[in-house]
């Protein structure tokens, strides 16, 4: 997004709403190379550490009556497992670890991004596009490996009249290749827009007359963002399951 700081030039607005998305090196310097530790790296690592802490240490005691951490860990496991089983089918549970990893990473980076002064890795297209491209490539490769040339039946709608099928095939192919675009931009766009809206309302808080309204609006938007963070992670995961189902059972 915004690559340069806008704060200096704005007179009424102390900060630019997009400033929160700037990737900057953590340990000084302006140079950013391939392996520079930036705030994006930090918050991604924190998300991974939090996932590991919850899933490994939460379930390590295996108490019969689960504590708080174990309850949450078991709930998350059961939630994603049921989703994979219901949406993608029983034979897709081999992909459960991958889908669980995706879900936990997205949910934790979304929720950690809601902390004040934090950075949300999933608000950047660079992150979500990589996630979506991995899903797209995995699904395509799995489809061809499991079904061979029959996977192309996904594009050939055999229930339609013969004259319509070539037209439908073109539409199906376009919609197939557009999948990673909508898949990734849905997540990044929702997260980024929500955070930017909160910052816009925060900018209004400086004006004395409307500051109570603005603080209320920030609170309300924050509540909505908590909801959106979870729902977008859920939608990302469930769409992965849908694409996986298409790859495993490509008949129309």
């Amino acid at each position, binding site marked *: *997004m915004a690559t340069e700081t806008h704060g200096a030039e704005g007179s009424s607005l102390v900060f630019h709403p997009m400033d929160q998305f700037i990737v900057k090196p953590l340990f000084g310097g302006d140079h950013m190379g391939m392996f520079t530790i930036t705030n994006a790296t930090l918050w991604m690592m924190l998300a991974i550490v939090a996932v590991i802490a919850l899933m490994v240490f939460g379930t390590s005691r295996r108490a019969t009556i689960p504590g708080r951490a174990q309850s949450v860990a078991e709930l998350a496991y059961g939630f994603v497992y049921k*989703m994979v089983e*219901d*949406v993608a089918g029983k034979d897709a549970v081999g992909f459960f670890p991958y889908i669980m990893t995706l879900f936990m990473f997205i949910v934790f980076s979304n929720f950690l991004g809601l902390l004040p002064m934090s950075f949300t890795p999933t608000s950047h297209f660079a992150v979500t596009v990589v996630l979506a491209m991995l899903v797209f490539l995995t699904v395509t490769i799995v489809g061809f490996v499991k079904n061979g040339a029959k996977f192309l039946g996904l594009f050939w709608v055999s229930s339609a009249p013969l004259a319509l099928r070539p037209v439908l095939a073109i539409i199906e192919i376009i919609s197939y290749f*557009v999948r990673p*675009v*909508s898949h990734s*931009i*849905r997540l990044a*766009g929702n997260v980024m827009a929500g955070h930017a809206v909160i910052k816009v309302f925060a900018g209004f808080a400086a004006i004395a007359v409307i500051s109570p309204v603005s603080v209320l609006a920030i609170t309300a938007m924050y509540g909505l963002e908590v909801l959106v963070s979870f*729902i977008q992670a*859920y*939608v990302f995961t*469930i*769409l992965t399951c*849908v694409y996986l189902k298409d790859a495993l059972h490509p008949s129309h």
Partner: protein
Amino acid sequence: MEGDLAHIGAGLAAIGSGAAAIGVGNVAGNFLAGALRNPSAAASQTATLFIGIAFAEALGIFSFLVALLLMFAV
């Protein structure tokens, strides 16, 4: 001047977000109408609801993409 036109175009592309909002509202509203008629079947269909919302939203996302391209790439 070109930059100004691009900004107007980006604003026009934002209409697409409103259209997507109509679509999402249609999906959710019809789901609610159906769910109130048969509440026992509603729980099993929430996944379908979210898939439907996601597909309706996808086309709004393309207009958002067009707006982004006009703002930052043109």
